[in-house]
């Protein structure tokens, strides 16, 4: 299931951008989340956060509580997590805090 990224949803919450260390990991994560019908979308890695070629995962912030523990449990924790508000990206703490 895919839902388009929605940087500002009016409730003051935004979008999280998850960067994984390899393409294999992001596609493993995609497969897992798809199988559980969890909402996310794959996007090109925003150049503001990461100079890598390739893909990132975008989540609505309110879905993170569902998605992050699933990734964690499958040993598919992202390398970095950013919050996007407008054009600004802020690094999220590695543990919890969503």
């Amino acid at each position, binding site marked *: 299931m895919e839902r388009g990224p929605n940087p500002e949803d009016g409730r003051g919450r935004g979008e999280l951008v998850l960067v994984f260390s390899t*393409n294999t990991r992001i*596609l*493993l994560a995609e497969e897992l989340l798809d199988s559980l019908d969890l909402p996310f979308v794959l996007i090109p890695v925003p150049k503001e956060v990461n100079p*890598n*070629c*390739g893909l990132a995962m975008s989540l609505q912030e309110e879905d993170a509580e569902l998605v992050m523990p699933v990734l964690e449990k499958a040993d598919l924790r992202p390398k970095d997590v950013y919050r996007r508000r407008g054009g600004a990206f802020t690094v999220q703490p590695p543990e919890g805090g969503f």
Partner: protein
Amino acid sequence: MIYLDNGATSFPKPPGVSEAVARALANPASPGRSGHKPALEASRIVFRARKKLAGILGKADPERMVFTPNITWALNAAIKGIPLEKGAEVISTALEHNSTARPLRELEKAGAIVWKKIHPRENGLIEAADLLPLLSPRTKLLVLNHASNVTGALTPVEKMRRLCPDVPLILDAAQTAGAYPLEDFARHADVVCLTGHKGLLGPTGTGGLWIRPGVDVRPLAVGGSGSNSESLEHPDFLPDALEAGTLNTHGLAGLAAALDYLEERGIENIRRHELDLAGVLLGEAEGISGLRILGPSGNLENRVATVSVTLEGYSSSDLSSALESGYGIMTRAGLHCAPLAHEASGTFPGGATRFSFGPFNTPEDALAAAAALRELSGKRRAV
């Protein structure tokens, strides 16, 4: 044409393989390098192939399945990439293909390793117990050909593993992958090397190595990986650590389709089918005058469906040519890139003529091969 050269490369490829390659060629992207839709599609193709190839080894972690252009590259990557202290002893069989023998010879010549070989017994088989006298505290690596591409003999890898569970073991599964179930080999080996175009029934230019967790393999080549681009150092996480440069997406699309076919038909079923054909040829060939069959006879369980022969009065290449021109049977003559195996079989330097069966051969093909050998043997006596 009767194609009996599946040991060199399999033919035909299963339905769906060429279509998958053509579809991938119609896609403009390279995997893992860009974020647009076609690039994502290419990444998915590679990912699917990676999962499927790791699936050959049972529950092997796909992140540790590294793609290479063929098994020659995979074996070089493993043999040269596992750090060894100077003077380390490395043991292989005396039936290795040059893609193992040459890297080992190179290291030996440079004085980096001491190379020891386990010779087959009289019956053509490697005995696990013959590893024991070669083991020492300096043994740091085992490189084993799972099945000889000359004699078809299977190496008792599981037993040998039990004799030295702590010595890293690199497996050359070129002749067994797709033709022999490998689900347990993520346990029996530390690095499993594969090639896509033989028993796995995929296109040439595909292959890989699976690396057990905890085993360190240094890269042979570094460069673009699509990851860690900010750094001048190549990433150290798998699979990227050992995959520098754009992968063969088109070939991997075909490999994934071939692996679908293997899954559907069942590797154990293919093994039975191919051994039946080898059994027909071996049975029919018995008593043909002047014919010598290399390697193990009798019990088919000790082998894969590769049968090499010599026929008195013919060089290996003359026999191969006569089979092609007179009977339309394709075989491979010579040393099969494995001079060691021919030395061990007493057929060096003349070589032998090899019949290797695949999943699409029929009992009629095996009977035709035997009938041709019988007739050629008769002609020889008439001369």
